[in-house]
């Protein structure tokens, strides 16, 4: 609406010039105001200074007179005179007069001494009829002047002419002058104060002093400063006025000129009502903006609805796997083993977590549905182990498909939703399993950043989950569609959401997904994901500052200090372990004796890769482990000297690949040469 006030550009410029003149006027007035302010302040200070100066002169005058009087009033002559009768006083009076005359003050024209108690005028000298006088109490204690404790029976009065004292006070400073007519005088009366030097001023005192002080010369420097200030402000104003004009021309006037130029006739005259058209145009733009805002709000609502639908679809998709487990277990549940019961509970937990996740999102976001869930630290290894057990169980109807877990990085903690993570990996595993038509292996590996340095050019630490299958593979031209567009391949009921969801989640967590596939040979899916700092994790037993900002936490071959062991034995027989330990010690070697494979897994990151590992075959225990089962895992982690320490026939283990040899239960030290070398 502001443009309506300026019907033409010329008017706008005219008004701008007016405002500039107004601005200059304001500066001028401001300078005058400043001048007055400074002047008044200085005047007040000067007046205060003059007042102090005159008061100081008065005090000096009083002090001088008081000191002289004190000397005289302390003499025996003076005191005896006060205490004497008329006869004695008559004798003393000439001496007293001479004494008082020693007060060198030309202003004193008369002196009287009066006994207040008897109202007796005991002494008088000079002119004593002046109305202007100062009366001082004479207080004595033990014949000494004492204003505090003394007895004040007498008063001495000095009669002084006002003009005279004003001149005397003025004489103390060349700038103080007696008050003249029509002069703004400083007025002071001794009757207003209590003390005159060291004497008390008595009632009846009336001694006005009129004086004034010459004002200082005009401070031309101040005026010069004010003129310079005005000039500076004016130049400042001109400078900014020009800048402002340029700004207005560039951003306001020129665009308006262009707009209105279209409305001008050829001869340059403005078409009538042109400004109304401009206004209409602006109104139209405003209306469009409002419509756009409304449309955007509507789109937002639609997006929310779409997200709800997407979420529901994902839930339905994710819930399929655990439901399949439940379905397969349902038939066997009566004769169920302990292991099956555990799987059943695990599946139920997953379904519950999905449901809770869904509920949490609705609870937290009322107006917007977010697919983010609360991050929570979790152990990746445990989650994957649990997931693989679930997959093995759920696909037990396909014994020809093996799911292998090759774990070389323990205690990895991630900080995103564990349920979403399990869903992501579950989707990839499902795809891998389903890609194997008849028989084959699905291998899941975990690696840490030490092996991934070239993948990301960041300081974050990543771990890799690699899922490889030797299934049918994906055509190269379909990989992108599978990831981005939700394309489903080879499944009757496939929704195509699995890998799309995986990609979405991994990107959300700051990770990366890679798919390499060869039709007919298999597919490798690599998920690169970040792991968390130690501050957020309570599960780690080992800390290491990796520098640059945060403590990173993961136990890797590179990070952990190596253990000093030379030999490892895994045997559930305690006596055998002790026998091996003693034997190793006798041969100057350190032997780590473990009772099961889990203990070995925990220590793997801290073992040298060239260490000799001896495994008992029958480990028994709760899980009835077999030592040879871990051999592939050890080889995968880089260990090469792996032996079986068993009483069984070596031929029984010919299928085990990667063994360095098979020894008996007897300690084989030194172990430089194994008993049996497998070719």
């Amino acid at each position, binding site marked *: 609406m502001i443009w309506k006030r300026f019907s033409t550009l010329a008017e706008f410029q005219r008004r701008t010039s007016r405002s500039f003149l107004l601005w200059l006027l304001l500066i001028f007035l401001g300078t005058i105001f400043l001048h007055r302010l400074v002047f008044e302040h200085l005047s007040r200070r000067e007046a205060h200074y003059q007042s102090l100066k005159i008061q100081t002169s008065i005090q000096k005058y009083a002090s001088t007179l008081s000191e002289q009087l004190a000397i005289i009033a302390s003499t*025996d002559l003076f005191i*005896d005179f006060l*205490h*004497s*009768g*008329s*006869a*004695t006083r008559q004798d003393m009076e000439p001496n007293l007069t001479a004494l008082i005359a020693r007060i060198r003050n030309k202003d004193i024209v008369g002196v009287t001494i009066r006994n207040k*108690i*008897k109202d007796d005028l005991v002494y008088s000298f000079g002119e004593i009829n002046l109305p202007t006088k100062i009366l001082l109490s004479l*207080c*004595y*204690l*033990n*014949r000494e002047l004492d204003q*505090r*404790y*003394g*007895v*004040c029976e007498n008063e001495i009065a000095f009669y002084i002419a006002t003009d005279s004292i004003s001149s005397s006070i003025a004489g103390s400073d060349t700038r103080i002058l007696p008050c003249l007519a029509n002069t703004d005088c400083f007025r002071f009366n001794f009757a207003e104060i209590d003390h005159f030097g060291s004497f008390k001023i008595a009632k009846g005192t009336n001694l006005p002093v009129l004086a004034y002080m010459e004002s200082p010369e005009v401070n031309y420097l101040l005026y010069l400063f004010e003129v310079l200030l005005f000039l500076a402000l004016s130049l400042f104003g001109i400078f900014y006025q020009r800048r402002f004009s340029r700004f207005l021309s560039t951003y306001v006037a020129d665009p308006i000129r262009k707009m209105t130029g279209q409305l001008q006739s050829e001869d340059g005259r403005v078409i009538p009502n042109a400004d109304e058209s401009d206004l209409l145009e602006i109104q139209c733009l405003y209306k469009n903006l409002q419509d756009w805002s409304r449309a955007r709000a509507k789109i937002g609502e639609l997006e929310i609805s779409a997200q709800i639908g997407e979420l529901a679809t994902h839930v339905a998709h994710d819930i399929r796997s655990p439901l399949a487990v439940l379905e397969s277990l349902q038939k066997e549940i009566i004769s169920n083993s302990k292991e099956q019961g555990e799987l059943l509970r695990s599946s139920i937990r997953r379904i519950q977590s999905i449901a809770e996740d869904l509920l949490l999102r609705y609870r937290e976001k009322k107006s917007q549905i977010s697919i983010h869930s609360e991050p929570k630290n979790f152990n990746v290894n445990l989650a994957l182990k649990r997931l693989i057990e679930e997959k093995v169980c759920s696909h037990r109807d396909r014994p020809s498909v093996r799911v292998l877990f090759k774990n070389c990085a323990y205690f990895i903690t991630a900080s995103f939703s564990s349920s979403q993570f399990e869903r992501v990996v579950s989707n990839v595993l499902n795809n891998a399993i389903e890609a194997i038509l008849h028989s084959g292996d699905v291998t899941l590996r975990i690696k840490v950043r030490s092996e991934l340095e070239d993948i990301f050019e960041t300081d974050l630490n990543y771990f890799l989950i690699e899922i490889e299958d030797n299934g049918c593979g994906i055509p190269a031209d379909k990989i992108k569609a599978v990831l981005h567009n939700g394309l489903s391949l080879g499944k009757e009921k496939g929704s195509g959401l699995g890998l799309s969801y995986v990609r979405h989640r991994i990107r959300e967590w700051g990770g990366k997904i890679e798919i390499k596939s060869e039709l007919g040979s298999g597919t490798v899916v690599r998920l690169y994901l970040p792991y968390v700092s130690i501050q957020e994790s309570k599960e780690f037993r080992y800390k290491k500052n990796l520098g640059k900002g945060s403590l990173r936490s993961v136990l890797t071959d590179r990070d952990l200090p190596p253990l000093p062991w030379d030999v490892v034995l895994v045997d559930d027989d305690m006596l055998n372990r002790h026998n091996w330990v003693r034997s190793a010690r006798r041969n100057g070697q350190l032997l780590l004796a473990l009772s099961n494979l889990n203990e070995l897994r925990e220590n793997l990151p801290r073992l040298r890769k060239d260490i000799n590992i001896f495994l008992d075959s029958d480990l028994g225990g709760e899980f009835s482990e077999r030592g040879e089962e871990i051999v592939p895992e050890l080889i995968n982690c880089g260990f090469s000297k792996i032996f079986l320490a068993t009483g069984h026939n070596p031929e029984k283990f010919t299928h085990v690949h990667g063994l360095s040899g098979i020894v008996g239960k007897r300690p084989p030290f030194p172990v430089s040469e194994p008993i049996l070398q497998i070719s």
Partner: protein
Amino acid sequence: MGGFYFREAIIGLRLNFALFLLAVFFVPNIPAHGALDFNGESSRPTVNVLTWWGYLTIDGIRETIEQSCDVNLSFDQYFSNSEFLRRWRQKEDRYDLIIFSDTIYPSVASGIKRKGIVIDDIASKYHPDVQKKYKQKKYPKNVLFFIHSLTGFLWNPKTVSISRDDTVEIIFEKASGKLIVLLDDALEVNTLLFEKDKNEVLRDQRIVDLLQSRNVFFTNEFQTILSKENFAFAYSWSGDAIAHKNRSELKHLRFLVHPALSHVSTDLIAQLKSTTGAECVVRTLSSEAVVNQIAEATNYVSPFKAEIKPFRESSKNGISNIASLRWLSSPNRDDFQDIHARWERMKVKFTQ
């Protein structure tokens, strides 16, 4: 003898005409030789007196004397014995009569003895007990008792409480940190503080014990000090004490005539010149009527009555006659000089 604040103490008191006639009646030998000169000014002789301050400023006394004796009375006042001695020695021959303390009589005895001046007939009218004392003193015939005083404690019940059983030490201890006034008289204070200490070392130690770290004023002009909030007590003469006590703002003060510490002191009057005016003034001032009137006005004790005005505290003690109290003894000249010198040193050392 103690001075006092007469104007405030005896407001309303006026000597009536009958008293004037009585005075004239008892002094029949005073010549009335006053006459006006041609200028109308008084040509009466002047009688010059050196007196303790306050005696002759009592309303009516001066007029009585001047009219009775037809003289102009001029009197110089002093406030301490030291001052008296200084002024006396300065202008010994100036004064027709003097009023002074009997404690300094030995110091001035040789200077005041006058042959041919006989006024001791007045002493025959003293109270018998007092008359006995007068005879024991063996003053010259130109010296009379003028008036007697009692010493005592004027104390402030707002700050201390002094009783008749208190010793000097206890009294000073009670007043610790407060204002104390001791009258400015060497013999009086010596009697109060050191009467029992003949040993000089012990006496000096006692001075320190009593006065060290105390706010002590040695003065007879203490009316301003009495008004201070932290005033404790003043050891003073009864006349001064009662006069001050009667001031409206000091009604709360109390005066104690202590049976063990208070004593009687005496002021003497001596005629030094044998003029008729001087004799008339001495006889008028020493007359029973005038002395009784002064005693009445000032709370001192007239030698004619020897009667102690009933203070509240003293009446409880049953003290009604000065004869029953100790009288301050007059030391010989040398002793007095020693006491006085010590007193001056003590004032310098402990004064406020």
